[in-house]
């Protein structure tokens, strides 16, 4: 018999509401709003209240997939990231950095989004970076 709550931040949008994931015997079973959080002050929207529900969804990708000849196959992280890096490098060499654009997500943290735009500008060398919340 084990019940605890884990403090975390909602992953659905950029507001950054504080929430508690309820963990019963190692399984995430529910969400509660964090009462003393400066942003949401004990409230949540419908997405936040159900923030735990996707965790055990069957449809979630657990490993990277590579699309080769029209079908996806499972791959290791090393192989998938290697493939992405090689092809991005090739496109950048052939068509210049401005031929690449990066779209990031509201489901990442502020810090992750910061790192992403930094990576687009400093590593790829383009200002073509945007966010799904602005589409």
């Amino acid at each position, binding site marked *: *018999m*084990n*019940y*605890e*709550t884990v*403090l975390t931040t909602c992953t659905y949008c950029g507001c950054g509401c504080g929430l*508690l994931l*309820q963990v*019963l*015997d190692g399984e995430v*079973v*529910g969400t*509660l*709003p*964090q*009462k*003393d959080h400066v942003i*949401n002050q*004990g*409230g*949540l*929207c*419908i997405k*936040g*209240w159900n923030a735990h529900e996707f965790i055990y969804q069957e449809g979630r990708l657990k490993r990277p997939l590579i699309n080769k000849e029209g079908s996806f196959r499972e791959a290791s992280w090393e192989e998938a990231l290697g493939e992405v890096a090689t092809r991005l490098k090739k496109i950048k060499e052939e068509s210049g950095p401005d031929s690449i654009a990066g779209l990031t997500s509201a489901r990442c943290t502020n810090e992750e989004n910061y790192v992403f735009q930094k990576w687009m500008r400093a590593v790829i060398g383009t200002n073509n970076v945007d966010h799904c919340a602005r589409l």
Partner: protein
Amino acid sequence: MKRMLEEKEVSAILALRRNNGHPTPFLFTKAEDLKDWVADEANRYPLTKILIMIAKKDPNETIGIVVRGCEERSLVELLKNFQLRQGKVKAIGIACSQELANRCRCSLPFPSQVEEGQLAKPVEDFSDLEEIEKQPEDERFQYWMKQFGKCIKCYGCRNICPACFCPTCTLEDSNLIKAGGMPPEIPIFHLHKAYHMADRCIDCGLCEEACPMGIPVRRLYRKVKKSVKDLFGYVPGEKEEEKGPLEFLGDGSYELPGAGK
């Protein structure tokens, strides 16, 4: 509490624990963990509702729970409605400070047995209801429609409510509301909940605290609660042996004389 765990009077105690500086619900199973226990006043969580979930998984364990006045009333309602098992719950009472009682306008800011804290004076303040009851019907209707119009249908007032427990909630019953469709319209959404809570609401105010739009839902529930008291002389959470008057399968003694009588 330490003794209760050490002597195995209870298998675990549900309370608040200081977690990275924030009070959060936690099930204490080891006596040494109790050093992190807090009786935080500013942050109340629906502990009794969490207890239903834990007790359903381990129905044979006796679990202790730290309760305030409102939470004890919620326990009474949950035991009465067979959501918790008699004898499997051990309430550990703590009293609220006068400051909290005033802020909550609480008419019973302490449980029947208090282990910790000084008893605060009950606050009988119904000025929120009196103020609105004075208004003409038309203005009152406008007031409520304006308030309900703010609703974003987060279902937070229902989710956090320690007296709401139906496995299938009418507000999302697939026979009534299509999956992927819109939730019930205003004011049906709020009035439905108010009707369902009329003989169960223990006036803890968690619903209003959870509302991100600042709708005074507690005011609505206080009104229906008052109506139930005036009509049937019934106060939810008071006596465990007394059934709610809106129970369809009650003994009939609350039925108002009406058609066919």
